[in-house]
Structure formats: C-alpha cells, structure tokens
C-alpha cells in the first residue's frame, strides 16, 4: 500500500488494473496493531505560513521561521523546490545562528563581567545545520546523511535543522517535529507529510507541525506545473489547523488524479531496445523519458586531476572509468554555464571529457554534445564543486577528487578486452573453459534451473564451455603473448599473464573472439541438436561480452574514416578463416571451426544454400525466448565468466 500510488495507474495495455483478490488491503486486525495505528493517526497539524511571501528576502524569512520554531532536541526539516533556494535557506539559517550566538555571547560577557560568573549564557544550545540536495557527489551525500538525524543518527540536546530539496522525499526514514515545506504536487506533499512526526513520536507533545509555503503563482511554481500545485494548495487549505495524518489523507486519494499519460513503455519499444547495436557503434539511445517523469535531463560529472595543462593532455589515457561515489548529477543545461563561466586569473579554460566507447579514448566534447545519463570528466583544478554545498559552476577553487575505486580493469572499449590481459598469470584456454562451465553449472543449480529446465541448462553450459574457443585465432594468441607468435604445440591461452598482452595487429582491429566461439558452437556442439537449442547456445557465446549480439557489422572508425573492406570485426572477408581444433579439457576436443564472416554478416541466405545469416538466427532466438528470458540467460553466462576469472586471479600466486 502506498499513499502516493493510485491503483488505476497500474492499468496499462499489457496489464489491466488489479481487482478483487488480487488487491491486498489492510484488514481490521492490521488496523488494530498499535504500531500501525500510531503511524496512521500521527498528529501533523497543518498551517499555512501566510505572512511569508516570495520576493527578495524570502529565503531569510523561511530561515528565520525555521530557527524560531525549532525545538531543541528535535529535527526540523525545511523542504524547498530548487537546489538554489535550499542553498540560500541553509546559508541564512547558518548566518542567523551565528548572529544569535554573537549577541548571546556578548550579553553573557557583560553579565559575566558584572557577576563574575561563568554560568549565564552557557545554557543556550545551537542546532546543527545541514544542507541536502541532489547535486552532491554520491559519497559526500552519503557522508552528510550518515551524520544526520535524517538517517537515524542520534540527536543531541540542540537538535538539527536540515535545509533540503525534494531529494529527501523518498527513501529517507526520518521524523521531523517541525516540517516547513513549499507547496508541491499532491503526491510530493503526501511524501513530505510522511516525514513529519512519522510514527507519532511527537503526539505526547502536541504532535508534529507542518507549515507550508504557498508558491502557487505563475512565477513561483517552477519546477512544477502551476495547475498541479494550485490543486495541491487547495487541499492543504482544507487541512488548515487540522491534522493531516495518513488516515486523514486516505480520503484524498482521488486527488492523486488520473495518471498523467506521458510515455508508456510498450512491448514494441522493449523489443526494439533489446538490440543495442546502434549504441555499440557510437549511437545513443536516450531512455530517460521512461525512467523519470520530469523534463529535467541530467548527466553526471566527476573530477580528476589533469596533472597540469588543464586539458588532461598528460594523464588522459591513465584515467579509469568513474566509480559511483565520484558522481554528481547535474542538469544538462548547466554544462553551458560551466563552460562559459568567467575564467579567473591563473586558471585556464574548462573543458568536458567523455569516454568514447567505440574508439576507446577519452574525448573532448562541447556542451551541446552532452547526452543525458552520461558521465563527464572535469578537471579538478578548475572547480565546479564546493565541499558541503555541492555542484557550483561559478566556483573555481580546486576540487578534492574522490579516489576512484581501483578495480582490476581499466576502461572498456570496443576493441579492448581487459579481462583477457588483466590476469596475474597466464591461464590456458581449456582451464578457463572448464572453469566457466563449472561456474555456470553452479549458478543454474543454485537457481534450480538445472532440474526444471534441463535443455536450457545444457545450452547455457555449452555456451560457457565454448565461449572463448574463438581466442584460438592466431591473431588473438599473438596478442596475448605480447606480439610473439605461439610456437607449435604450445597450449592456447585464454588469459595472458602480468604485463603481457599487446595491441592486436592493425588490420584486425575490432577483432571479436566471440564470433569464432559462436561459430564453434554452431558447427561443433554435438551435444545439442541443431536448431533451437544450439542456436541459443551460440547466441549466448556470441553475446558474452555484450559487444556483439544481433548484428555482425563493421563498427565506425570514428569521424572521417571508412572502415577497410577486407576485414570485418577482425576476420577476413574475402576468404573464410578456419580456427584450429581446441582442447576443451576432460578429453573433449572442439574440432576445426570455419568462420565465414562474409556470409554470416550478410542479410539473407546465400544463393541456393539453406544457410542462415547470423542476424536471422539471433532474431529468431530473441523472438522465441523474448527479451527478458534471453537477457537473463546472457547474464548467467556473463556472470559465470566473471566469477571464473575472479577465481583465476585469486588462486594465482
């Protein structure tokens, strides 16, 4: 049960709204429970702060209200609708307390002089003040939360005042005695009310206080729509002087209104989106409209030290991908402001850097090229972030970068294969193949899939066993051996040891070993009947890096270049290539495999032959299993590979 969801919202073409026994409601026994009833009937007295109007000095008035009505030992929460206002309110509260302190201390000093006593003035308590919004680095935000009563940290005798944005609406289990909030759409107001005397903690002392600020005017409603806040203000007025307890709010469920139909994700869209080839080759699919319902598009930023020069020229290739802790979510529109901020003396021009997945390099982009959801690297020397305040384009003081987690891999690009060259010591192909097969079997068994779906199990295990067969290709073996061709009789490797590994020879750039592996399954996995199950296993082998899935097509070589015609994803187009037999351990040998990249990558079947192209096979597998089941099996195969690789690393001396 949620106070902010209307059951009717669940009604979509794929899923009609539930009714009858499908809906689980609270019953009388539930209502009789004390813990529940304390929450349902918690007193939160509503009042409108009519004397606080917008305009200049607004934030100070809000701050003063919070300070004056704050009670020692409790939490006071001020929620405003924009980050900017939250910062100002925070500043004003801090300033107000400082002034007060000074006055009190001065008075105490006089008294002290008069009475010769230290007592007076010592009894005054000043609450801690904190700022919380969405423009903090994940790590910093977590640190603020950790110390705050918002996440259950104990309050001292003075208590705490938090200035926040709607970022605290969801996922924060805090209970404020006094909650001051700007008007917001009704579902948000319900969330905010829920943070006031949450479990009726303040009922013995007269209950929680919920003071709201009316901003339902044309100029002040942003970022919300005027209509929706007007409606909300009307409901709030109905509660004036009364308690808006959850029980009282239940009657207002209709106010949540009809679902605002914006974008519903349809089956057709899901199936389309399964094929990510467009993104793999440098395109970009923006799914944010299905994830969030506000219009603000945002991207992430993180800071790194450029090592001088301001443009990372020295240290670019050494930058690994960011970890979550480093990221701040920033509205797309702010990038322009960031770049165009006036450059102070002693600083150089700012720039934006993103990882180009296709080519495998960091590249500099303009503010117009920032896409929602991407991570943008900024130079720590050129500011943009203030400790305790968050994202701030006009600040140029050096940012202290969060140390990225030193994972064992660097950045992933289309041509790279960090897992193959990152092992501590060399691993043979047969050992690795069996290792991954074991891990796959373990996962399937833990999930109970092996007993229920033996054929699927066999297909996944086969994919696991064959997934790296394509690595037997001489070009790949040479790459793993740091550029030296393997000697006759030398066992093929799956992973190179420390320091080994070179770039693959240039005409075979974009070489993907998975293609050879998938062909090996199709031609040589005799344990599976030809057709459906073998096709599935081949697909899982092909997709185990997520880089080649439905289509075999040349990847862009970046701007201003036409890919060479003789090679496609590293394989010769003119003549089919053949892969040597591979020892898969336990006495099993995968015989020679033919890779005919030309006919596999072509649309349609070759003349007179019943051979199918890869895309025909792959789309049929997708059609048969559907996107979710297929993704699930892909994930199992991938996880098995990762686990086996992790074990190889830890078992090595």
């Amino acid at each position, binding site marked *: 049960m949620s106070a902010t969801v209307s059951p009717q919202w669940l009604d979509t073409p794929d899923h009609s709204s539930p009714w009858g026994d499908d809906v689980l409601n609270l019953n009388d026994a539930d209502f009789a429970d004390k813990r529940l009833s304390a929450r349902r009937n918690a007193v939160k007295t509503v009042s409108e702060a009519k004397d606080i109007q917008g305009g200049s000095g607004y934030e100070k008035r809000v701050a003063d209200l919070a300070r004056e009505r704050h009670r020692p030992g409790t939490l006071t929460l001020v929620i405003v609708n924009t980050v900017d206002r939250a910062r100002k309110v925070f500043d004003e509260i801090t300033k107000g307390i400082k002034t007060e302190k000074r006055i009190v201390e001065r008075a105490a000093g006089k008294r002290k002089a008069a009475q010769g006593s230290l007592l007076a003035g010592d009894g005054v308590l000043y609450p801690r003040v904190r700022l919380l919004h969405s423009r903090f680095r994940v790590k910093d935000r977590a640190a603020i939360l950790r110390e705050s009563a918002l996440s259950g940290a104990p309050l001292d005798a003075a208590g705490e005042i938090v200035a926040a944005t709607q970022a605290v609406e969801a996922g924060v289990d805090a209970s404020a005695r006094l909650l001051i909030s700007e008007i917001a759409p009704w579902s948000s107001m319900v969330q905010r009310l829920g943070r006031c005397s949450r479990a009726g903690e303040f009922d013995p002392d007269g209950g929680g206080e919920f003071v709201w600020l009316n901003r339902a005017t044309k100029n002040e409603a942003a970022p919300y729509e005027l209509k929706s806040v007007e409606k909300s203000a009307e409901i709030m007025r109905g509660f004036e002087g009364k308690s808006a307890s959850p029980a009282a709010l239940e009657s207002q469920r209709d106010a949540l209104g009809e679902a605002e139909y914006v*974008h519903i994700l349809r089956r057709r869209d899901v199936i389309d989106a399964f094929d990510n080839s467009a993104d793999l080759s*440098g395109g970009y*699919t923006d799914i944010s409209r299905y994830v969030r319902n506000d219009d603000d598009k945002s991207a992430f930023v993180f800071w790194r030290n450029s090592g001088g020069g301001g443009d990372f020229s020295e240290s670019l290739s050494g930058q690994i991908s960011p970890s979550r802790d480093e990221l701040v979510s920033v509205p797309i529109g702010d990038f322009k402001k960031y770049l165009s901020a006036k450059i102070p003396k002693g600083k150089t021009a700012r720039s934006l850097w993103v990882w180009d997945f296709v080519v495998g390099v960091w590249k500099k982009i303009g503010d117009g090229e920032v896409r929602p959801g991407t991570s943008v690297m900024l130079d720590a020397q050129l500011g943009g972030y203030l400790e305790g305040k968050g994202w701030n384009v006009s600040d140029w003081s050096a940012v202290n970068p969060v140390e990225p987690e030193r994972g064992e891999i660097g950045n992933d690009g289309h041509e790279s294969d960090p897992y193959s060259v990152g092992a501590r010591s060399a691993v043979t192909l047969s050992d690795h193949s069996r290792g991954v097969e074991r891990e796959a079997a373990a996962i399937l068994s833990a999930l109970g899939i092996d007993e229920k779906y033996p054929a699927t199990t066999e297909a996944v295990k086969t994919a696991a066993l064959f997934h790296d067969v394509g690595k037997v290709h001489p070009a790949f073996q040479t790459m793993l051996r740091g550029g030296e061709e393997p000697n006759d009789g030398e066992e093929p490797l799956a992973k190179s040891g420390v320091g080994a590994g070179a770039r693959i020879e240039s005409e075979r750039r974009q070489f993907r070993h998975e293609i050879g592996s998938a062909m090996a399954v199709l031609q040589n996995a005799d344990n599976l009947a030809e057709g459906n199950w073998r096709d599935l296993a081949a697909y899982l082998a092909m997709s185990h890096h997520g880089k080649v899935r439905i289509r075999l*097509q040349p990847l862009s070589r970046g701007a201003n270049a*036409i890919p060479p*015609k003789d090679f496609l994803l590293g394989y010769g187009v003119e003549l089919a290539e053949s892969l040597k037999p591979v020892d898969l351990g336990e006495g099993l040998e995968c015989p020679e495999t033919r890779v005919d990249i030309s006919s596999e990558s072509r649309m349609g079947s070759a003349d007179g032959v019943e051979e199918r*192209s890869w895309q025909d096979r792959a789309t049929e597998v997708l059609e048969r299993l559907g996107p979710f089941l297929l993704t699930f099996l892909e994930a199992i195969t991938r996880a098995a590979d990762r686990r086996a690789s992790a074990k190889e690393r830890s078992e090595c001396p």
Partner: protein
Amino acid sequence: MVKTLVMSNKRIDLAMDGCVPREMLSYLKALGVLKAITEGKDKSAQGFWMDGDRWVVRSVLDMDEALDFFMNEYQPTPIVSPWNKDSGFQSGGELAKASALNRIISEESPRFNDWRAVCHEARRAVEEAGGRFDKAEDRKNWILRRCRNRFPDAALEWFDAVFVLTDESGAKDPPLFGSGGNDGRFEIGANYVAGVEQCLLNRSPAQSEEWLENALFASKSPSVKNRKVRTVGFFDAEASSHDLINPWDFVLAMEGVLLFAGSASRRLGAGARSYAAFPFMVNSSASAGSQTVSGDESASKSKGEIWTPVWENPASFREVKLLMSEGRAEIGGRQAENSVDFARAISGLGVTRGISAFDRYGFLERNGQSRITAWLDRVPVPSAPPSASNALFDLDRPRQRIRNGKNLPASIKSLGNRLEESVYQFAKNRGGAASLQDILLRVAEVERYAGKIRDEEKLPPMSRFQKRWEREADDGSAEFRLALSLASIVGDGGALSIRENLEPVTVDGKTKTVKWSKEPRGAFVWNALKDPLLNMAAILERRCVDSGRLEGANIPRWTEGGARALNT
C-alpha cells in the same frame, strides 16, 4: 505463364510481377506481401529481388495458394487515425468512411479481431478528449499520446510510421505521410479502411480476386472498377493524386508502409530530428543527381527523400524488419543526413551488408497540398569503396558551410549545388581520377566566387586537403602533371605560395594557414577573363618583381610535383 520457378526444400519461389522496383507503391506492396505471408502463413517465408528487379517470395505457397490465402485468411493490420477529422471517429468528419469501419468491426470473422480492439480504444480516446481542451492542437496531442500509450500492439506500427512523439514539442510528422496520415486533405487511414472493405468484404469476391491477381502477378489487364479507393501521391508519382486504384494495391502497400515505422533506438536517438527517427529518410541536397524528377519542379517543393534497399539474397521478414529498424547509412562515424552523404555511405559500404542497391525517391510537395514521390535514381552498392573516398571528408566542412550558410550569394549557393552534384556522381560512379578532378574543378569554382566576398566567417578559403588528393586525382595526363607542378609551388624558403598569385589569399609561410587577403590586389594577379598563358606570364612577371627583395627565392627552379615533358 509459369510463375513457379524453383522448388527447393518444399519451398516455392513465387515471382510476383505485380511488384516492380522503381515504383514506390510496388516496392511497398512487395514488403507488405512478405509481411502478410510471414505473419499469417509461413514464418520462414523469404523475399528477394531477383537480379535486382523481380520480386520473389519463397514460401510454402504456390500461386493458387497465395491467392487463396489473401482472399480467405489474411488478417489486415488495423490502421486507424482517430486524431484526424475524417478518420471516421471524430464528429463532423466524413461519415461514409465510418460506415466501412462499422462494417468491418461488425463482422463476426476472427480476421477482424484486432480491429474491434483498436476501434474501441480509438473511440475512447476521442470521447475522453471530449471538450476538455481549449486549443485544437492540445487536444490532438492528448489523443496522440493516449493512442500511443493505449493502442493494442497491432496498431502501434502505423502510429510510429506517421508520428514521432518527442519529449519537448509533442508530436512530429515524418516527411513520409503528409501530416499524421493525411495527404493534403485526404485521410489515408479511412481510404485504407475502404480498401479493406473492397478487398475482403466485397459483394463480388470474384471481382476482388481479379484485383488481387492483378496486384500480385500483373496477370490481367487492370480493370479498376471500384468507386471508393484512391491512390495517394506518396505511392504513385504518375497518377494524378487521388485517382482510383486497385484496392489490393493500396491495402498491401499500406502493410509495407508499416515497416518504415521508426524504431525505438531511432526515435530515442540523439537529437531525434523528425527525419532521423525514420529509416532511410534524408534531406535532399539540392538537386544532386535528380535531373530526372518528373513534373514541373517549379511548382514542387522538395520535402526530403527516401532510399529503399534492394537485396538479392532470400531474406526472412525478420531480417527485413531488422534492416528497416536500423536503417543504416553511416559515413565517417555518423548517419547520412542528406542524399549526397547517403550515396557516399553506400560507396563507403556503410550500409547493411547484403544490400545490392538503393532506389532513391524524392518527396515533392505540390501546391502546398498533396505530395508525390518520384523515383530519381538507383545507386548500386560497390564491392569495395572507391579508393579516394577518404579524401572527400576534407570537403565536409566547406560543403556544410555552403549548404547551411544563410547569407551567401546565390552564385555561391548554386556553385555549391554543382559541387554537391560532383560528389554525388563520384560516390555513385565508384570514384576514379576523372571524377575526383571534376570535384576539384567545382571546388575551384566555389573558391573563385568566395574570393569575391572574402568572408572568413562565412566561407574561408579551402585548405588543409590531404596529400592523397594528388595521388588519387592523377589520371596520368600531361595537364594534370602540369597543374600539380604549379600547385606545388607552396612557398618554401620565404617565397610566395602560388595560391597568392592565383587567388586573393595570404598563406602563412610557416603554418601554411590560408586566409583571405585583406587587400584585394597584392600578389594576386590572375584575371579570369584573360587567356591563361597571359595570366601565367603575369604571374611570372609579378614574382620577378617581388623576387628582388626576396633574393631570388620567388622564382622556383624546382617543385615537389615537378612535371617534365618526357612521357607525354
């Protein structure tokens, strides 16, 4: 006439001579037939253009079975456009069409199950929109969004073929179907409904079958006696708009149209300009390669182009769908956005492998009303990219400046068109030195006129061409060697680059940066009206005068690309 060509694996190759390439209607019909047979009869059916010209469907159906399938089993995709006035859903619209719709949904036959569900949702959308909107546009947008969110899956392709819903500005129309399924004032969906009624609920099935046979196999002389179904310009450039048409032609072509629905990855792709959301649709770049446009061009406005792929290996409908959903035409790391770049994408093999050629059609708008689609050209996919393809990237920026330049003189714009044309011909005709030289001549023309305005912002002098031009444009002729020899007087050792004599430019001795010269006549002595020899003499004279202060460096005795009179 024997239509059955080969029997392989109990599968029959059925040539459909009613579907010919180079006609939009026929092309779409071919796709529609494959879609219908795959969805309704044989999941492994395949289709291909034999020798690039003859549509063949390989499936379990022979000719009679195919006719029987379409007459008795085929379930037409429900296509309705309740957002349009004459769709049969809105009050005040044309009601005759609604009666066809009513007939279809009151049929008991399971063939029309989807139709009932779609019409139900369409009516609800219109009813609920009711009078709650002040502006007609808001109401339409609400209905559109509602339809996209609530239509049964079967009807979504039509929606995605005629609209792309954007986050910012509501709905956008693709160039393909006029505005949201209207051709001028003609409602396409309602016409389709009338077609379905004529084909499947005809009081004389024999008549319908005769039409069908003609539509698929071109077997009988067309005797179009229906009084209801008309063509639209999009399908047929020849027929004057809204002529009567064989209803089966229309119905099957509409099935084919659905393949041009924008896929999620295109709709949600970066930018999602309305064209980019739809496969194989690009801006037309000037008139490049399109001298063959029929009709009076003066009265027509180009509304973009569509390039339809032709393949010769049997491909399943799955593969065709994938081909269309991707609509790949990549050149230098980006999708082609205009016809010249589409031709370059083809020659650079930036298209799906297995396509043998593209037919290029232009959308033209006539008198602000209906649109026609005219076949313009066929561009084959080569087996290898022309060797000089990479050189052409040097022209991308200047070409773009000329195309998009707002305040450029008409003379430069029109020379820009000639340049576009030469690049198009290069791509289409697989390059070659002569073709590349032609491009260079066009570049020089543009440059000469650009030298008259000398605007560094609008159109700086062309520069920084890759060395490969020298090699690739060399046709072995004496003229080329002579030209190269002169051009390679690049001004080393304090001497002037010969460009400064030929054009009003300055060339920085060190960085080789070329800029328009501030003073109109410095070293620039070339006079286009004079004989070239006299011009060369003038250049020599000028350089001799200058060389006094340059200590002789200005008279080159040797150039990098030197020519000798030996092997002419």
